[in-house]
């Protein structure tokens, strides 16, 4: 079993930042998650990688949604990575809340990187 961790991986060439979550995350780690998402927001492209995340709940979803909304408002590219290694609860909470249909979710970083950046000067 993986210990809980949050790490930031900078991708300087692409002005990107990947926030990698391992282990289980819930209300007890949500403040640290928000800090990490804030740090990542300095980059033009943010990916939140849950492919090795064992567990998330609606508290974590709240932080993910806030990060996505902030990225959208500031013209950043944002993606959530959920793969076969993601814990059952990760897929479950996204599917129960319908957020897997509303947020940009990909099964790998490569797939997410293929997405275009938001166009410059988005209008409201």
């Amino acid at each position, binding site marked *: *079993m993986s*210990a*809980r961790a*949050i790490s930031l991986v900078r991708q300087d060439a692409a002005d990107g930042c990947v926030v990698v979550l*391992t*282990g289980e995350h819930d209300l007890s780690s949500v403040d640290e998650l928000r*800090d990490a998402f804030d740090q990542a927001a300095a980059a033009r492209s943010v990916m939140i990688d849950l492919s090795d995340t064992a567990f998330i709940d609606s508290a974590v979803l709240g932080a993910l949604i806030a990060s996505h909304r902030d990225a959208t408002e500031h013209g950043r590219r944002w993606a959530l990575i959920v793969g076969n290694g993601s814990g059952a609860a990760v897929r479950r909470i996204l599917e129960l809340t319908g957020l897997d249909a509303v947020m940009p979710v990909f099964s790998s970083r490569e797939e997410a990187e293929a997405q275009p950046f938001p166009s410059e000067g988005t209008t409201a």
Partner: protein
Amino acid sequence: MVRAMADANDAGPRHPQFQQHKVEEAVTVLHVEGELDIGSADALRSALDAAEAQGDIVRLDARGVQFLDSTALGVLLASAQRLAARGGRLELMNASPAVRRVLDMTLIARTVHLIP
């Protein structure tokens, strides 16, 4: 500032040591030395499985356990459940104050028998 939440002690996984022997026909004592946490949960499960196969009463000697986290607690509970279901029990002896605190807080003492 983001704090990496992984264990600060990154010298590599520290494996706890397990040693078992029988004291009576029904009682298997399992001595544990080291930290019982998420990293050693699988090893703890294996050690308990082996002890459970020997008889219905498993007595965990926790004298050498400095640290017990909630993942390890879950593993202990599962073992206690399985043993109780067949009329046996999991006992815990020589628990340090820190380990007792975790067990007391969770009232787990109902399922895992603490030997004073």
